[in-house]
């Protein structure tokens, strides 16, 4: 058994965007509320949240939770 070409492609994308230093899911959870509020206020690229944005690209579970939060807080 092996990984399929599709699975390898997904992994290749993740490897390509891997950073030397990344925040984990707990650290993301601690910061996501502030990031979301800046976003909802109209700041599409709030400064100082690059790691939060990066984590959203890496982690599908945190992305799913964030999109759900956006639905609940959209103004």
């Amino acid at each position: 058994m092996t990984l399929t070409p599709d699975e390898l492609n997904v992994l290749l994308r993740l490897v390509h965007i891997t950073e030397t230093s990344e925040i984990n899911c707990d650290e993301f959870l601690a910061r996501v509320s502030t990031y979301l509020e800046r976003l909802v206020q109209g700041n599409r690229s709030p400064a100082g949240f690059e790691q939060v944005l990066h984590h959203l690209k890496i982690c599908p579970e945190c992305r799913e939770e964030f999109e759900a939060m956006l639905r609940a807080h959209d103004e």
Partner: protein
Amino acid sequence: MKTHVPERSNTQWLALLSKAGAEQSDAAQELAAYLRRVLAVMLQHMRVHDDDIEEFAQEALCRIVQQLDTFRDESRFTTWASAIAGRVAFTAIRRRRVREQHDDLFAQAQRTAHEMGQQHDMVERNEYRTRMLAALDQLIRNELTDRQRTVIVAELRGVPTIEIAERLKTNQNALYKLAHDARRKIRSGLIDAGFSATAIRNALGAEDTQ
């Protein structure tokens, strides 16, 4: 859709929830009601019942009161609380999904990871992108530890991280580090094999990397 937010300041929330007795109870009930409203919207596309939302809100409330000292006061308290509620709810839903599955996806992923670790050779291919994927496959087989390989395969196969962590007898933060270290090892290996970041980006295509 705008969810009605209780009108208390962060300072008020922290002060009331830190107390004992009736004041804390009133604030807790108000917060729980807010969390139920937020969760109803957050989970509207999922198969959850009102009982589930009540359970998630109550568990989230417990966590929030326990973790009051971790609130950084950089956002509204209620937004921070809703993030915790979302984490509690989605984790529970993912656990439930694992229990309802007929197949043990983690066990399958672990078998694949183990077998890949036993088979070190790959067939040479000519086409560049296929050679890159073959190199990636080879790195997974030869450069990762068995544990790293298991995490990578399990995550790619959609096993929830809460399940992976429990099956590997670790926590989700340690799991993230395992996966991160594996990705970094693979990236270094691809570069050493002659596949630059530019080459990878070209192979993925411009849209994939935005």
